[in-house]
């Protein structure tokens, strides 16, 4: 897992591993994060998830070793 900006500041680390069961989807990863880090509840609705560098839906299935990035609303420029 990679976390950026506001979301990163709500987590103990910006780069960490998450253990998920076989057949898990992105929404399952979010369920674990929400359970372990209740502070994320404020930002979960506005945070997109990228799987291996591409924005993905919550229904997308995960494979071992996937990189998930938590992307809050952007503010570049």
């Amino acid at each position, binding site marked *: 897992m990679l976390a*950026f*900006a*506001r979301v990163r500041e709500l987590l103990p680390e910006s780069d960490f591993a998450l253990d998920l069961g076989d057949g898990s989807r992105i929404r399952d990863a979010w369920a674990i994060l929400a359970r372990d880090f209740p502070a994320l509840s404020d930002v979960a609705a506005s945070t997109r998830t*990228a799987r291996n560098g591409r924005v993905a839906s919550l229904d997308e299935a995960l494979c071992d070793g996937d990189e998930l990035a938590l992307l*809050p609303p*952007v*503010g*570049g*420029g």
Partner: protein
Amino acid sequence: MLKVTRDPIDPRALEGVLQDGESGGVVTFLGVVRARAGDGRPVDGLEYEAFEPMALAEFERIAQEARERFGDVRVAIVHRTGELRIGEVAVAVAAAAVHRKAAFDACAYAIDEVKRRAPIWKKERYADGSGEWKTNETLHP
């Protein structure tokens, strides 16, 4: 030139790579760190962070879209990360085309899309030591 960098941006370097002898117009936009926030609060500086591989892929797509929309234009995009002081260039976008209209249009399109889509974040730092992540949900003209 499509780049995310911690080093100061030299706008002349972007313009240089676009000059091929065929372009009659080069338009450059610089996004510069302002001393005041949108609400008037004094700002000490800005902190930028990027998800670099994804930001670069987005820059590639934006440059390609500019070519599809405005014809034979070439676009360079460089965005800074790390701690920036007032007056420093945070982002530079340059566009080159045979004629000026396509260069102006492509430059405007590219900076708007960078602000809207690129996975880059900005934190305003205030004099009292506090800070706030700012989003581009409501873009200013």
